């Protein structure tokens, strides 16, 4: 497997007159073609910011970046607007939590998918519409020919989410970014969409980065899982390894505090306190104030993300 995406030491800072937010503080990872990386984190951990940086979706005038994001050798952070718009949609696509915002309410689903196909490939109108129908079939929307004529509000949440996946895959991207795409869906629909993403990923050999706060969801789709906390990756491991033997105290706490079968009557293990304010760059381990294994050297320097074995990296002074 070759690495298609390389993120190196990414920093993202948002600057507004009121405050500065250091949202991402040095994130590095690789993604291979055909691999699914789950990024797990709580709100404010920087997981979505990291994901959106790959498409440079943040408002340019109040975002400061440093580091490098290379897709198949091309540096995304240096791209000119023209190259950037070719990148978006053609090589990299994104699906969001709320499909309603991805579609324009005044056009039908078919018109919108066909329009995207036409813009990126220059196909004729009838050809694009045919492609749109094939795409809806591909995401397993029943009676696709009729659904082409439906407006977004006429579809249920699950159908809209499928349609958004169809739209995202309309130009054969190689990398799919998913930002909590199943969070707003009902349980019985969520599993359908997760399975669909997994199948399509295999079928088209896509690289997928799947951002979620739900461990169960991450386990269902990911090959590797990265755990983010306060703008940093604190642990990265193959999914089995992450579930069986998480090393970072935060990952451990997160897994232990997630309620699942058979915990009834037990006291839940919880992480005390709340995530830190990101107004300043931390000088030590960001998790130290909440960590029960904290040592004096935790606060003196930011621990490095070290490989403790093949493909398993941990950012903790205690990890061996």
């Amino acid at each position, binding site marked *: 497997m070759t690495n298609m995406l390389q993120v190196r030491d990414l920093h993202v800072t948002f600057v507004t007159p009121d405050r500065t937010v250091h949202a991402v503080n040095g994130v590095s990872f690789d993604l291979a073609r055909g691999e699914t990386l789950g990024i797990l984190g709580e709100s404010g951990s920087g997981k979505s910011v990291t994901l959106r940086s790959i498409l440079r979706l943040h408002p340019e005038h109040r975002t400061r970046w440093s580091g490098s994001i290379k897709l198949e050798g091309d540096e995304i952070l240096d791209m000119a607007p023209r190259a950037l718009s070719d990148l978006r949609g053609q090589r990299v696509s994104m699906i969001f939590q709320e499909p309603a915002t991805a579609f324009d309410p005044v056009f039908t689903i078919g018109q919108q998918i066909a329009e995207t196909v036409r813009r990126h490939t220059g196909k004729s109108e009838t050809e694009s519409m045919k492609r749109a129908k094939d795409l809806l079939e591909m995401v397993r929307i029943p009676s696709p020919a009729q659904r082409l004529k439906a407006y977004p509000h006429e579809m249920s949440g699950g159908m809209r989410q499928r349609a958004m996946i169809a739209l995202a895959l309309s130009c054969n991207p190689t990398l799919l970014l998913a930002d909590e795409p199943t969070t707003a869906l009902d349980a019985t*629909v969520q599993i359908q969409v997760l399975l669909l993403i997994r199948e399509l990923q295999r079928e088209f050999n896509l690289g997928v980065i799947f951002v979620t706060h739900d461990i169960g969801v991450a386990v269902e789709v990911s090959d590797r899982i990265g755990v983010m906390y306060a703008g940093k990756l604190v642990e990265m491991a193959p999914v089995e390894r992450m579930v069986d033997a998480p090393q970072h105290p935060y990952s451990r706490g*997160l897994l232990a505090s997630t309620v699942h079968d058979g915990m009834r009557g037990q006291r839940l293990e919880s992480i005390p306190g709340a995530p830190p304010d990101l107004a300043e760059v931390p000088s030590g381990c960001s998790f130290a104030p909440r960590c029960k294994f904290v040592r004096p050297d935790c606060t003196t320097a930011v621990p490095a993300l070290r490989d403790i074995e093949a493909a398993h990296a941990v950012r903790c002074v205690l990890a061996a």
Partner: protein
Amino acid sequence: MDTLLPIQDRGGPAQPLLLATGLRKHFPVAGGLFGRTTKVVRAVDDLSLSVAKGETLGVVGESGCGKSTVARLLIRLLKPDKGTMVLDGDPVDEPHGITVNELRRQVQMVFQDSYASLNPRLTIAETLAFAPRAHGLPAAEARERVRDLLSKVGLDPANYATRYPHELSGGQRQRVNIARALALRPRLIILDEAVSALDKSVEAQVLNMLVDLKTELDLTYVFISHDLNVVQYLSDRVLVMYLGKIVELGPVEAIYGNPQHPYTRALLSARPSMDPRKRTHEAPIQGDPPNPIDPPSGCRFRTRCPFAEDVCARVEPPLADAQFQAVACHMRVAGSGHSKAMAA
């Protein structure tokens, strides 16, 4: 007014704390030029439940199943179109019963959105003192109660009383919301998706706190959530709803260990696996829940049910007692006409 002491138990432990019978709530959907109502959302239809003293009744279901409407009906933020409620032996809002305001002293609610449920212009102390003051508690006593409430939910009164909601994290705000629900010393608290918006590590803190408060203050909970794992963790009995109807109701062990209704089974097996070696390979049911406007005839689940037959479209299955739980499915009713049902 009294000084808001806890209300004493009346009917003894065997009498249900809250008994709701035949609750129905339909919402008209305004349409047409002059706002004529053309359609109705059948949010809750003929729903009966009882909440025993000291138990936690979990209510699960997907969006549009009417679980939030149930919450609002139980505390009478919505007036039911039909049905009666009895609180510890007293009929609610009836000639010889208690008033809605008396109900609300004993039944309180915690909402999902911790931000929208706190007035942004009031400090935490002002928010917490509002209900006791409105019930005539003198200012000094109200201040004392605010301090007490904050300590109960694990927030240092000296540090948090004068803060505003936007200065608190989501978990802290939800603690304040729980404190507010406790302010009138109620007996029953309805938790409507109260932990759903919280991060997992914070959710665990709040769940632990809810368990502690329940024992300490002798509370009864109605815990409404879409998260099956959390409901399983907290509840003694579980009620499963689908499109405004109860499909299954029973002890938590029976519902999770031996689900009888095809919908309950689907819901349970739709949970993401926590083990990467045992991933889900097939979705238990296809499609989305239908719109609660014009729900399917007969059994409302039949459009997604793998076992649906003619009888399911014609006859509405009653909520009938099965082994340990009550189930609304023709397959469990002897002689219903379903091929999988036992003969009468």
